[in-house]
């Protein structure tokens, strides 16, 4: 502990001040781990990406920092990943609002959208300025943008 904390602090400070030039900290190594069975068969090996501890520690710290604020930041219409919210709300809301629209004669148009490969397609250049508009602290954004 006494040895790792100063080292990590040093690394984190370097990341913050050097930013994008230290992008290599999120580089991973892909390797294979053997599963049960015949190891001459490729199917019995599992690929895994190993990330560095500096990256993992920093990512965990940043995740925990943002986690507690999410219920106040993320609009209530998003029900995933936010503590205290449930996908069931979406189901009930969809069913009951449809039912209500039919009963009361309101005209309702419901559009269910499907995004293609959403996770890896985010354009970060658009995203980081948008984050500060949502009220996320500039420091947090700076940290995260240093490795994305």
């Amino acid at each position: 502990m006494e040895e790792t904390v100063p080292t990590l602090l040093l690394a984190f400070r370097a990341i913050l001040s050097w930013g994008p030039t230290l992008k290599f900290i999120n580089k991973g190594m892909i390797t294979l781990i053997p599963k049960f069975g015949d190891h001459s068969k490729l199917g019995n090996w599992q690929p895994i990406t190993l990330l560095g501890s500096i990256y993992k520690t920093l990512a965990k710290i940043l995740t925990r920092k943002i986690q507690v604020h999410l219920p106040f930041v993320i609009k209530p219409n998003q029900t995933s990943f936010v503590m205290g919210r449930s996908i069931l709300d979406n189901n009930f809301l969809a069913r009951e609002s449809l039912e209500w629209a039919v009963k009361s004669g309101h005209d309702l148009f419901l559009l269910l959208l499907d995004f293609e490969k959403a996770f890896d397609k985010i354009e970060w250049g658009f995203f980081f300025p948008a984050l500060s508009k949502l009220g996320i602290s500039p420091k947090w954004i700076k940290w995260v943008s240093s490795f994305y």
Partner: protein
Amino acid sequence: MASYLFILAMDVLGHMLDDDTKYKVEGLTLPKGRCIQDQTFVDDIALYFKETQSNMDKARIVLDLFCLASKAKINWGKSIAIWANK
């Protein structure tokens, strides 16, 4: 971390749909006065709105803008539209 970043990005779309005065889509007003425009789970979005041409146009503009800015792409072939009273 990636999941939080993702829902933050989707939150931007949510704000575009109901905060932007120019393109604010007229949603469904529920009995108690609450108005819903959209409901999201990760990247699955359900849009609720009054079926008028102007609403459709606005929704389309907002979605196109979001896709243009974020590089996200909507798969229209896998998207579903439901008319409640037709």
